[in-house]
């Protein structure tokens, strides 16, 4: 961080040697940070890394012990000095719509914040119209905030933060719990607004794939900055490459590779390995040589994206105590029958709430041993579908089979045979880890003879040995979710329902979580139905269903979904220019498909790659924008999701 050491008069935020302590715990430790005017600066890191503490201190709402903190040219050293800059910045705390008032309408919320900030009435009307128009919330002016979807709440939060036109906005995880379409929308609006008024933004996120949206970013871990710079520069700091292969038999290949590599995961039929200190060229050979008695079907090596780099960086520096965990995850004490029978089946399932149809005649089936992903925007009906299948909510129409029992008739039987984990952490925060496990063991009627063995098994599979006596409320998010999973597994069910289990969990925590899920499906033949907003997680699923407005709009494997998008809309082009925002406006005007801004890059979809490339290059030259690079890539699941949902949204609008 060469640039941080110089005191920069132009910088909006200038921090040196910042420390924050909560009682004995050091939350932020000696952080240096400089943010320039007009930048979108990202803070990425797991829970408890110190992101929120740092952001609150910058916003002037948290005192700190050590270091200097200059914000907008004012040195923050007292409450009085913090007061001076409060009018010039906007702060949006973590949590969906937490800073808003649920019973006030969209417009009343905006008016309230404007009055708080003493915005003149004429200016307010003008800004309000513009912001509501941009966020497409103008149709919902009268709607109470609590009835908005997650994405809409966050957009309203953004409007309320920006209504007094601050010079600096601080957004703490604004996209957590928001679906990919709304997320993309949020970023587009943010980029446009910031550009227009030359606002600087400091944003934190738990989604690694959003890192590309930032101009520069810092990776935080344990109160320290692990790496800082542009997204590309950070990716390159982790020495090594990613190797992706498909092999038969997969489990054997996995077992052999785990001996040599710490960072390894399976994604559907693929195995992905991060090989430290190995170049892309040597990667394929190194891995091939390690495997014996395994048939390698495909193998390729490439540079890691930020998420894998982040995990690799953590491992390569001796910051974590990530000792090699025991590879053998304990087995069920009563293994499920190894058959591929149908575990979950929905037939014409429908649910109405008054006049509103939340779920509209959906059909799908999940086999034993399959990981099934249910995707959709906030409010698409995923949670309602799960509630019906788990027997909490009676369906208005249709039927379903779960774990061999009829959903409408044998609700009690189903409840005994399934495990369930809900969106929000739903265990008792004022009970210890052990007490929670024991409580659920008793609720699920685990008999006394197997009780001790079963509790040990849960502690083992969820990796809870070190926190057994702590109150659940004191645990970080990642471990809490593993505890919730452990409790859902106490009776070793054949079917598992997980409703956004990893929302708000950091990448390392998510990976550990998915390791357990993959094991359960592959080894124990558990059928897993999962919903998620993380598209990198959706890749783990064997089968995906995409829901929109209560209907199933796509039902396929992830690979086929991507392939069919390629057939329909083509490849993904990543365009790098010297003036990304002008280029973006230009490309949007020319009606290219799926244009979106990712930091300095622009993404769009093109069927005829060659022709489009030529078209773009001509167009940009004509407007004297320099085209630095244009590459074709395979679209990701997020592209599939956004493309499909937007297509339907547009159809409904016309």
């Amino acid at each position, binding site marked *: 961080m060469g640039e941080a050491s110089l005191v920069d008069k132009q910088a909006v935020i200038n921090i040196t040697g910042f420390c924050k302590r909560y009682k004995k715990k050091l939350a932020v430790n000696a952080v240096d940070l400089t943010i320039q005017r007009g930048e979108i600066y990202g803070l990425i890191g797991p829970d408890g890394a110190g992101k929120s503490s740092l952001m609150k201190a910058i916003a002037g709402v948290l005192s700190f012990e050590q270091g200097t903190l200059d914000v907008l040219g004012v040195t923050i050293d007292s409450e009085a000095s913090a007061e001076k800059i409060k009018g010039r910045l906007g702060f949006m705390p973590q949590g969906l719509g937490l800073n808003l008032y649920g019973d006030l309408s969209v417009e009343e919320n905006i008016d309230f914040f404007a009055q708080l900030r003493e915005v003149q009435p004429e200016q307010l009307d003008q800004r309000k119209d513009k912001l509501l128009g941009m966020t497409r919330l103008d149709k919902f002016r009268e709607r109470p905030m609590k009835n908005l979807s997650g994405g809409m709440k966050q957009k309203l939060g953004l409007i309320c933060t920006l209504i007094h036109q601050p010079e600096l906005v601080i957004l703490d995880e604004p996209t957590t719990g928001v679906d990919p379409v709304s997320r993309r929308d949020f970023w587009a609006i943010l980029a446009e607004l910031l550009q227009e008024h030359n606002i600087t933004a400091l944003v934190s996120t738990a989604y690694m794939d959003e890192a590309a949206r930032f101009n520069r970013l810092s990776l935080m871990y344990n109160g320290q900055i692990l790496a800082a710079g542009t997204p590309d520069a950070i990716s390159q700091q982790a020495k090594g490459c990613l190797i992706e292969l498909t092999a038969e038999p997969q489990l054997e290949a996995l077992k052999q590779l785990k001996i040599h590599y710490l960072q390894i995961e399976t994604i559907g039929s693929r195995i992905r390995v991060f090989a430290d200190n190995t170049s892309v060229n040597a990667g394929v050979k190194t891995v091939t040589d390690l495997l014996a008695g395994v048939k390698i079907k495909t193998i390729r090596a490439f540079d890691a994206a930020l998420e894998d780099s982040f995990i690799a960086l953590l491992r390569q520096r001796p910051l974590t105590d990530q000792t090699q965990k025991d590879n053998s995850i304990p087995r069920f004490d009563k293994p499920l029958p190894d058959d591929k029978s149908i575990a979950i089946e929905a037939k014409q399932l429908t649910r109405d709430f008054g006049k509103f149809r939340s779920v509209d005649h959906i059909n799908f089936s999940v086999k034993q041993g399959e990981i099934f992903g249910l995707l959709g925007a906030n409010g698409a009906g995923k949670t309602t579908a799960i509630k019906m299948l*788990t*027997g*909490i*909510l009676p369906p208005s129409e249709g039927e379903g089979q779960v774990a061999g029992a009829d959903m409408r008739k044998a609700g*009690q039987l189903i*409840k*005994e045979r*399934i495990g*369930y984990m*809900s*969106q*929000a*952490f*739903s*265990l*008792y*925060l*004022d*009970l210890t880890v052990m*007490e929670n496990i*024991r*409580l*659920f063991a*008793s*609720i*699920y*009627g685990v008999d006394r003879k197997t009780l001790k063995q079963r509790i040990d098994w849960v502690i083992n599979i969820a990796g809870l040995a070190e926190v057994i006596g702590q109150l659940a409320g004191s645990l970080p998010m990642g471990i809490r979710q593993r505890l919730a999973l452990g*409790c859902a597994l106490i009776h070793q069910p054949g079917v598992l*329902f997980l409703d956004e289990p990893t929302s708000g969990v950091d990448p390392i925590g998510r990976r550990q979580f998915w390791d357990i899920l993959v094991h359960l499906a592959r080894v124990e033949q558990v059928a897993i139905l999962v919903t998620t907003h993380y598209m990198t997680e959706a890749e783990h699923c064997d089968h995906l269903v995409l829901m929109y407005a209560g209907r199933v709009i796509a039902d396929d494997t992830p690979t086929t979904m991507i392939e069919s998008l390629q057939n329909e809309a083509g490849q993904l082009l990543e365009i790098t220019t010297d003036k990304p925002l002008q280029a973006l406006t230009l490309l949007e005007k020319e009606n290219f498909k799926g244009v979106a801004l990712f930091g300095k890059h622009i993404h769009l979809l093109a069927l005829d790659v060659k022709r489009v490339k030529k078209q773009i290059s001509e167009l940009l030259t004509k407007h004297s924008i320099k085209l630095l690079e244009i590459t074709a890539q395979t679209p990701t699941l997020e592209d599939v999701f956004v493309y499909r949902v937007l297509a339907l949204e547009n159809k409904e609008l016309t």
Partner: protein
Amino acid sequence: MNYHAFLLWWSRTFTMTIKELKQLIRDPVLLLIIAYFFTIDVYMAGSGINLSLRNASIMAIDHDHSPASRELIYRFRPPYFDFKGDISGKNEAEERLNKGQILAVLDIPENFQRHLLQGQAETVQFQVDTSNTVLGTLATTYAMQITADFGRDFVGKQTGLNSDTMEALPVIQNRYRVLYNPNRIDSWFMSIMELLTVITMLSMMLPAAAAVREKERGTIEQLAVSPLSSLQILLPKVISMGLVILFGVAVCLFLIIIPLFHLPVKGSISLFFAVTALYVFTASGIGLFIATISQSLGQVTMLVILLMMPILLLSGAWAPPETMPHAMYLAMTVSPLYYYNEMTYAILLKGAGIDILWDSILELSGLGVVFFNFGIWHFRRQF
């Protein structure tokens, strides 16, 4: 239900009950509140509030300044009255009454003594601040009594009768015996009444709070997909909170009411606890209903306060049922506190046993079953 399923059912209910108790123990604020209600609150009600006339301040406008007028004024003395001195005239009297400095004014006309000596009828005026009806009425009654005694004694002296010869006159004397609370100690009535109020409030509040807390934190969803029935989710809350309340009642009775107010327990303490348990169960049914329609602890509290008023009003503690309008009289028959109130005083002060109270017990049980099932039924419907 076979034996195994029965065991499982109870083992689940038992662990859930333990869970509730653990959660309560880890909530120091709530524990403090409960402790306060069963000790300090009841003590204050028993020792502080007094329904009899004590040291009521009184002043006099004495236009006569005679031995007779002074004799009359002298009779307004502690413990009932506290004579604060003379005042000049009506204006000052009115002012002092308006300001609430004194409770009553005694106005003695000129020639008071002369008229009496001449054997003429004489009147004195007694002005009373009756904004507090109880005190006002008591003051008036006592004043009437004092003046009547004075008149009788005065006449007696005139006619040359002394106190001994007075006895020989044919006068009807009103002799009464006070039953159950012979010294008419208000603290007995007040502390028990307060204890009943506390029990009523906490029996609704604690199970409702425990249930709505699960809603607020989202844990209710996890329980709803588990093999627990609605009854199994709710019953442990009622059992655990009921145990806490019974414990509180024991503390209150044995550490506050009996030793500090010297309440003589006439009836069976165990019968009292059994009736209390029955009442807690009934009131918690209302609590569960409150929990169903509330979304937060704040709403629960507001609803409990809202319901407390009519429940207390219809309890029969402040006004006997016969004085109520007919509609309210009918409402009292479905008010659980009415039965519980009646039985509590009957057991503790009158020493009534199950042989007398069986019909009230049956009626309270009936209400309990109805209220509790209504609570459970409503809870089940919300999903």
